[in-house]
């Protein structure tokens, strides 16, 4: 909720500049609301830091946050992760790979009829917990699952 509002405010605050860019054909309308990249969150080196980066202090485990990920990944380069939130008023979902050098992988903000669901493919350097955090009405909910990353092929 928070992030979305900030984005919108920012968009409105610089309306003049954007209007000019639009007129000049530099920007397409959909880019107007593109959120800035959350550098602090994405570059955080651990899960706690990444959480802080997205403005979350503590999380509550939730069974209404459903995470589908393989128990053993065939290949750590492409780990398919699907998240569905059944928590009412979910506004965003963030996906973390705890043991990656920078745990936050992706962050999705939903609006205008989007259901709080997302599928994304992730790179995992090693066996790790995949953690998912959903925001709803200013509260953070969390679920997690371990994904084993193994060596495959001939390795030669």
């Amino acid at each position, binding site marked *: 909720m928070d992030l979305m509002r900030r984005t919108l405010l920012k968009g409105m605050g610089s309306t003049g500049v954007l209007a000019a860019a639009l007129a000049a054909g530099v920007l397409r309308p959909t880019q107007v609301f*593109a959120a800035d990249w959350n550098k602090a969150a994405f570059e955080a080196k651990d899960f706690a830091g990444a959480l802080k980066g997205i403005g979350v202090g503590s999380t509550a485990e939730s069974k209404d946050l459903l995470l589908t990920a393989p128990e053993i990944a065939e290949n750590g380069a492409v780990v398919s992760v699907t998240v569905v939130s059944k928590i009412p008023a979910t506004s965003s979902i963030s996906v973390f790979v705890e043991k990656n050098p920078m745990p936050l992988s992706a962050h999705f903000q939903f609006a205008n*009829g*989007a259901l709080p669901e997302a599928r994304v493919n992730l790179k995992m350097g090693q066996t790790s917990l995949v953690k998912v955090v959903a925001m709803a009405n200013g509260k953070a909910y969390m679920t997690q699952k371990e994904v084993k990353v193994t060596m495959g092929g001939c390795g030669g």
Partner: protein
Amino acid sequence: MADPMKIRATVSGDVCDIKVLMSHPMETGQRKDSDGKIVPAHFIQTFTIAVNGKTVVDGGCGPSVSRNPVFGFKAKGPKAGDKVTVTWTDNLGDKRSDEATVA
């Protein structure tokens, strides 16, 4: 200029399934090439999905999203014939925008 995306949006019932394939190396900046040199980071940082100009998903990515990213979302509201626009921006300032029609 990056290669075009592949966007698929299909309505079944009152839910629209939106799938996006993006053509992008998603370099982490931590990988070494065969000569042992670090390959500089190059990854999509933000993207938006809009239906008829209204944003439905605002996304942020780290470099650990897989190469040639695949995203799947669902939305209530879009109807056949609506325009889906996807736009991404990467860390080097490259942008790409593509459109598809909801089927």
